[in-house]
């Protein structure tokens, strides 16, 4: 199992790490049992993501994909951010080992969860726009497969 230089860089120097007190979209996905939880904070002004932060409990790939995802949505419109795919995150990181692909899925889901929260706060039902998000589950008993 080998990480690309990009993954190691984003792991070692994660961008946009921390919390955002004035965030208006916050999402958390993953599962501590599985060893990965990502929490994403978005500040959205006029339909544009003006600031973003994340906190992640997880492996190197989990941290790197979170970091990369924040970079990829910052400054983007909400609609653009909704297009963010795990594949795009992976490509931006020059790939991930096969066993780590689920981390990129988690990063995509974290962004969608935060956007979902944003819509909810706006009084808009997020599901038709964002789709169903698998919420974070700190005590779930199911499997860790994503």
């Amino acid at each position, binding site marked *: *199992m080998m990480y690309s230089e990009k993954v*190691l860089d984003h*792991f*070692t120097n*994660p961008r946009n*790490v*921390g919390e955002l007190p004035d965030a208006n979209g916050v999402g*958390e996905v993953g599962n*501590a*049992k*599985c*060893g*990965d*939880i*990502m*929490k994403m904070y978005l500040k959205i002004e006029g339909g544009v993501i003006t600031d973003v932060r*994340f*906190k*992640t*409990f*997880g*492996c*190197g790939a*989990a*941290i790197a994909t979170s970091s990369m995802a924040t970079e990829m949505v910052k400054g983007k419109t909400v609609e653009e951010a909704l297009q963010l795919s795990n594949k795009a995150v992976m490509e931006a990181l020059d790939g991930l*080992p*096969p*066993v780590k692909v*689920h981390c990129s899925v988690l990063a995509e889901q974290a962004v969608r969860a935060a956007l979902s929260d944003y819509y909810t706060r706006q009084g808009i039902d997020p599901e038709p726009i964002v789709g169903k998000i698998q919420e974070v589950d*700190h005590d779930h008993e199911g499997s*860790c*497969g994503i």
Partner: protein
Amino acid sequence: MSKMIYADNAATTQVSQRVLQKMLPWLGQHYGNPSSIYGIGREARAAIEEARSQVAQAIGANPSEIFFTSCGTEADNWAIKGLAHTLGPKGKRHIITSAIEHHAVLHTCKALEKEGFSVTYLPVDRYGLVSPGDVEKAISRETALVSVMFANNEIGTIQPVAEIGAICRKAGVPFHTDAVQAAGHLPIDVEAMNIDLLSLSAHKFHGPKGIGVLYIRKGVPFPTVFMDGGGQERGRRAGTENVAGIVGLGEALTEALEDLPEKTARVTAMRDRLISELTKLPKSHLNGHPTRRLPGSCNISFEGVEGESLLLLLDNHDICASSGSACTSGSLDPSHVLLAIGLPHEIAHGSLRLTLGDLNTPDEVEEIIRTVPQVVERLRAMSPVWEKIKDE
């Protein structure tokens, strides 16, 4: 690389200079096939027999009871599959092992389950100890063998091998122990401990990778041949002998046992300092038994952090360590050993294994003691899990 701190001696160790020097002729001019009749063949045969005597002496066995294999894994496969196949046809289709064995034993048992054998996986207590009483209760008339490891690779816990051996002897059941982590680090006496079969592997005690031993006590039912072919190892294990590896194994085991008490005292002191300092961190716990553990073995869980990221940051500080997080292995479940001693998944994911050896120095230990807390704090600062539990 000069300042690298290697604290993963349970994963593998560096080949010692003395061992390498003894191996080199067998990778050079002395290349004869040990089965050959002429001079360089006979030399190679003699070198193998010398190594066999070294191993025999190290564990209190007879040279004729020592068989070289390609690794610890092969020794485990041969012992367990071999005995199952020897005794299975006689109605003995039950195997007893523990829940915290190495995969070389566990997956071998799984393979035998597919063939119709039944396997009892004995539980362990929160320190990782198997209860000899449980072994006794599990033995039935169908039991072909008991296989309980000498010491655990992840948490370092040393099993009550002699007690288990005595129980098996009384019951007339062959007793195998995977001593891959113990050999070269703990005194082993197959007589006093009633061990019938024992696996070991050179690369865990400053020998080369890719060479191991299965000890098979004379008189116990002989495991069916695992590696069929030529007549090497008195017809029991085929394949042209890895002469350099065998010579290296014999020398490494001999060297490891020289001054063992002194080395053990030194390594244990370093380990204990590591444990006492690192468990001062909030919400950190030692895994394994506090005293009945391998001299160099330290395994600590730090709540709120995940193991692989811990290792990667330590690697950035040139510290080589390991973890019970399954992330490293690609599976998503954490170590079966940590789960078996009762750790919840989320805590098991945050475990750090530091295994010291006689080449480590107190300075290195201090450096680890300075670095680990920084790294843990850094990861906790970005952990949404820590955020929730830190004040609990």
